[in-house]
């Protein structure tokens, strides 16, 4: 159960203790919250005392009498508005001064409750104001999440960059303290694991450079007529050592040059990512085939493999940043989790559509269809 603080400011001890008594065992629940809400009542007899309490602990709600011995309730309200606008204020007021209550709501009080009030009246007012409090909190949270996608990317990124450093540091400390004894051979596993983390960190940095290239590309991109089959050939050459190591056969299926208007760096990034994924998430004796064809007003690039495949429920997650589909087959594959989000960004820049067909254990096929100029769908941004 969550407990929220309610400050009751009234010079009449009877009102204060009454509120405390009524709310002591009172809880409310809302369909949008899992937990029930309880209340902790804090009491203040004067406005000065109230301000002092508010300065030190921010209650969620203040129940405020206007007629106080020193400064008036309205002044406390002004103090809250200026310094703690998050606090919801409910004026406690006699029927005689309803006009004042209306004025108070105009200058920032959330609501008012006329006194004398019955326990039920107080409870329903509190229920209402608490609901407002939580709805506002949730709205703000959603608002923040929507606005901070970029922030989220950077924070996840810093986590991804620090994780390998922490791992390597851990191994070095274990070695420094000779935790596995005096024989250097006992540490070979630590060293191998450290080297693997350094390797994966390097590939993350390379992917980040690619992302930077794509993001800054609106200014720097040089569009030229390039032969996509040449770019593919070079990407395949780059991946050949890895393919040999993994016992995967790489083939390029194309007949003629396929000329399109593009930035060759973009296309290299895209092909490298697709082909390296197809090789990495494959099995010994497997194959990867890349085919490029031009027909009418589109260029179709297909990379298919005999790899481990993707579960249908994981396909929607594929293109998100830092998503790595984790399962026993992919466990030993290193990657930054950025590759396919990079592919998606490049494709988006060219107005291209990506289609994924996959069967777990059998293989995957990524198809990218680029519209050619003249078909009117080329992204204006490039």
């Amino acid at each position, binding site marked *: *159960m*969550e*407990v929220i603080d309610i400050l009751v400011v009234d010079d009449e001890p009877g009102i204060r203790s009454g509120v405390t008594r009524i709310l002591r065992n009172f809880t409310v629940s809302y369909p949008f919250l*899992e*937990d029930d809400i309880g209340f902790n009542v804090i009491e203040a007899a004067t406005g000065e005392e109230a301000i002092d309490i508010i300065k030190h602990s921010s209650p969620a709600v203040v129940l405020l009498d206007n007629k106080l011995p020193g400064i008036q309730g309205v002044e406390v309200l002004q103090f809250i508005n200026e310094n703690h606008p998050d606090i919801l204020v409910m004026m406690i007021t006699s029927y005689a001064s309803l006009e004042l209550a209306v004025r108070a709501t105009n200058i920032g009080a959330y609501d008012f409750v006329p006194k004398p009030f019955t326990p039920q009246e107080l409870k329903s007012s509190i229920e209402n104001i608490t609901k407002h409090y939580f709805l506002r909190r949730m709205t703000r949270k959603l608002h923040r999440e929507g606005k901070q996608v970029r922030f989220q990317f950077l*924070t996840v990124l*810093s*986590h991804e960059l*620090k*994780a390998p450093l*922490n*791992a390597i540091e*851990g*191994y070095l400390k*274990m070695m420094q303290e000779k*935790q*596995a004894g005096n024989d250097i051979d006992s540490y070979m596993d630590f060293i191998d*694991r450290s080297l693997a*983390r350094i390797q994966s960190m390097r590939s993350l940095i390379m992917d980040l450079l690619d992302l930077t290239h794509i993001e800054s590309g609106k200014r720097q991109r040089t569009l030229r007529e390039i032969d996509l089959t040449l770019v593919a050939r070079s990407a395949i050459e780059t991946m050949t050592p890895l393919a040999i190591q993994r016992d995967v056969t790489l083939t390029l299926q194309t007949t003629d040059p396929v000329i399109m208007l593009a930035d060759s760096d973009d296309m290299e990034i895209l092909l490298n990512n697709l082909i390296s994924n197809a090789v990495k998430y494959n099995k010994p004796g497997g194959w990867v085939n890349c085919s490029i064809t031009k027909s009418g007003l589109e260029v179709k690039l297909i990379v298919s493999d005999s790899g481990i495949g993707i579960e249908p429920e994981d396909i929607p997650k594929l293109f998100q940043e830092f998503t790595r589909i*984790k399962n026993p087959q992919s*466990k030993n594959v290193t990657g930054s989790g950025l590759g396919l989000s990079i592919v998606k960004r490049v494709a988006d820049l060219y107005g291209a559509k990506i289609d994924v067909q996959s069967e777990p254990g059998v293989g995957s096929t990524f198809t990218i269809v680029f519209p050619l100029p003249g078909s009117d769908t080329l992204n204006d941004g490039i």
Partner: protein
Amino acid sequence: MASSRKTILIVDDDTDYLFQLKFHVEKMGFDVVTAESQREAENILKNIKPDLAILDLMMENEDSGFILSYKLKRMYPDVPVIIATAVSAETGMSFGISSEQERQWIKADLYMEKGIRPDQLHREILKLLKV
């Protein structure tokens, strides 16, 4: 005395962190069971009741550790849970463990920064196991 050895479940998707933590905790004299994901841990918990669990916060999802802790506490309310996180200290991102409400919901017994020294961790484990 073998039967009196305590079993500690460690769950982390970073295989190196898992390896290192297992190494340290075994040196402290505990039996260690490991899992690399929330899902794997849930399967293990069906068969084993550990004496204590150390859970990573971010695994399949940002909050896998919380969810696992919640489920573990529902199955075995008396098993102490340590949630290990590198996230809050490194990035300033709180991941919702800052508010009292979420602490109450999550009910982990201890939040531990991932850089904690093995001897500190050992003390915390002994404290939670009340030995």
